[in-house]
């Protein structure tokens, strides 16, 4: 794709650089600049956007962690510990008896208040459980491929190590957040993939054929965009039968989220096709005997691929928020599926949250991930569209 550079862009000085004598390369660096393809230029511009680069790195880390959730997890995500319900996050300590030690956690003792019957957990400073690395633990499937028992860390029995606390049923929040990330994050990708397919197909048809097709597609888009998305999603999601298997529900919810998502992409595709198809190189291609489909795929698509990537990056967080919202309301994904939204269901009751604030931790992950996507998308937009003067 990189061979289809746009000449008009290749000659543009990068944003923020000193003006370079246009047309005449005086130094080796300028020479390289003039010869670079548009994708190379975009990559260079993107690397200058420090915040966006940082966001990309963090997102990659988050996705890798989610992919290897089993390895990073401490315990089985469905394992209930009736001894440790609503346990606050365990503090990792380094000092014992006044001396620096390898990281460890203290033992816990449960005490029941005789009057109120409320459970409290008391730290037992006599018991020390060092955190061990690369330990054998519960069995899981390594990226779903082969069974493994190796885990990044763990403590010896009967030590209790719950870095993010436990929930109502005494399940480890940390391991569940990791497991939930797989569902919440992948729904963003799958949803955008569906939106992308729909958007390209309908937006492309709308832009290329024009006339009645264009008219109908545009009215559909206007209609969908004029609807409040949450009530529509809610109504559709509530109609998904509860007895459906997990995978089917997951796919249905993703599809529902894409119903609104494709409209924005379709608009971008249509706008770009309308703009590009009057260009000379399209005329040249059609005179040379290229078929319409070839023209779209080989000549038009590379021309606005970068815009599409920007819009897709900005659409992913929208999907993630959608899933979280629906699952939180109890009409999206349902237990035993673990997603960030499903975990937040427990936070619906404000009294419970006030007493066990760590139940809100999945929310921090949602906000942080979405923030990263927005920052990266913003950076990409600056890169992909050097003509748009944006001052963010």
């Amino acid at each position, binding site marked *: 794709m990189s061979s289809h550079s746009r000449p008009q862009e290749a000659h543009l000085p990068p944003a923020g650089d000193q003006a370079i004598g246009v047309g005449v390369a005086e130094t080796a660096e300028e020479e390289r600049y003039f010869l670079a393809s548009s994708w190379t230029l975009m990559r260079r511009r993107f690397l200058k956007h420090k915040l966006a680069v940082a966001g990309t790195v963090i997102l990659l880390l988050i996705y890798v962690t989610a992919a290897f959730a089993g390895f990073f997890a401490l315990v089985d995500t469905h394992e209930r510990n009736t001894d440790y319900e609503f346990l606050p996050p365990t503090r990792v300590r380094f000092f014992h008896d006044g001396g620096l030690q390898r990281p460890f956690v203290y033992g816990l003792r449960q005490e029941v208040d005789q009057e109120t019957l409320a459970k409290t957990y008391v730290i037992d400073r006599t018991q020390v459980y060092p955190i061990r690395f690369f330990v054998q633990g519960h069995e899981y499937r390594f990226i779903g491929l082969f069974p493994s028992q190796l885990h990044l860390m763990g403590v010896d029995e009967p030590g209790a190590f719950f870095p993010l606390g436990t929930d109502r049923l005494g399940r480890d929040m940390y391991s569940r957040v990791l497991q939930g990330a797989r569902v919440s994050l992948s729904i963003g990708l799958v949803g955008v993939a569906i939106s992308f397919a729909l958007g390209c197909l309908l937006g492309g048809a709308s832009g290329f054929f024009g006339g009645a097709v264009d008219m109908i597609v545009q009215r559909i888009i206007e209609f969908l965009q004029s*609807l*409040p*998305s949450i009530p529509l999603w809610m*109504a559709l999601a*509530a109609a998904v039968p509860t007895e459906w298997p997990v995978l089917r529900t997951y796919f249905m919810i993703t599809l529902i989220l894409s119903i609104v998502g494709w409209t924005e992409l379709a608009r971008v595709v249509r706008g770009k096709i309308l703009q590009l198809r009057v260009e000379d190189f399209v005329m040249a291609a059609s005179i040379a005997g290229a078929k319409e489909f070839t023209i779209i795929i080989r000549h038009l698509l590379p021309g606005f691929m970068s815009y599409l990537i920007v819009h897709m990056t900005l659409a992913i967080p929208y999907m993630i928020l959608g899933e979280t919202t629906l699952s939180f309301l109890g009409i999206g994904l349902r237990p035993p599926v673990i997603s960030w939204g499903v975990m*937040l269901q427990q936070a619906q009751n404000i009294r419970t949250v006030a007493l066990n604030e760590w139940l809100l931790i999945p929310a921090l992950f949602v*906000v942080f991930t979405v923030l990263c996507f927005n920052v990266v998308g913003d950076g990409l937009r600056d890169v992909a569209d050097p003509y748009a003067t944006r*001052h963010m």
Partner: protein
Amino acid sequence: MASYIVRRILYMFVLLLILSFVSFVIIQLPPGDFLSTLVINMENRGMTIDAETIADLKKRYGLDKPFMGQYLTWLFNLLQGDMGRSFQWDEEVTKLIGERLILTTTLAISSLILVYLIAVPIGIYSATHQYSFADYTFTVFGFIGLATPNFLLALILMFLTVKLFGWSPGGLFSREYIMADWSLGKVVDLLKHLPVPLIVISTAGTAAIIRVLRGSLLDELAKQYVVTARSKGVREQRILFKYPVRIAINPIISSIGGLLPFIVSGEVLVSIVLGLPTIGPLLILALTDQDMFLAGSMVMMLGGLAMIGTLISDLLLVTIDPRIRFSAAARA
């Protein structure tokens, strides 16, 4: 101009018609027809329903007809103000929705106004003080505001008030006013409860508007007419508000159309979390109980609300921007 308005209103009716169809499809989505649900519900409560009533209801909702016939019956009933019956509440849907819809509208419109009241001054300030400390602060807050879903913000605010002040800011009325008829006291009570939900609903919209206004105003400020005006000695204030702000504010006004569905969505969510007596909580209840007449009617009403809002914003834009007014007149 007049013909543009007429066409625009006609177009809205077409949209409303499609919306009614979509709403009806939603009513029909769950398996089984709603009459059997009604009969089961009545029997569960130990009531028997006689054959005559069933026949009556069948006729009223056109259940003996095919899908399109049922839709037309429903639509016809809707036009006469009959939205069907809620099975869960055993009440006319119109009665259930009525007051809640008014509160939803109030909240949505107040939030919309609040969004502009906050976002426009901040956007102008950010653009005129680019890269200042305040500008960076607003940008950071804007990003976080965009990344935090409404329901989370509501949850966090509630959590904080419970933690810090020991009370929860749920509801729209104090206990003594919940069932009371409308009076001055009730309105004052409502105003006292409004701030938290309003802030929560407005946040995401405000963040978006600040970013748009800042960007477009910066573009305008860099233009030559501003330099010319400045070199001629026009005062900064006057330059700013006489020309660039007026132009930069245009996309903001046209964005009401996109903002309103967004705010209605937010309102529904926030109401569910904060337990406000608006459409939101009723909608989720209706959906989880598959009380489909109620749910479908609410989707219809919320969608209609957003569409009417968009119509108003379009008409507003025509009156404010002469360029659009003339091109609309030319097309007509």
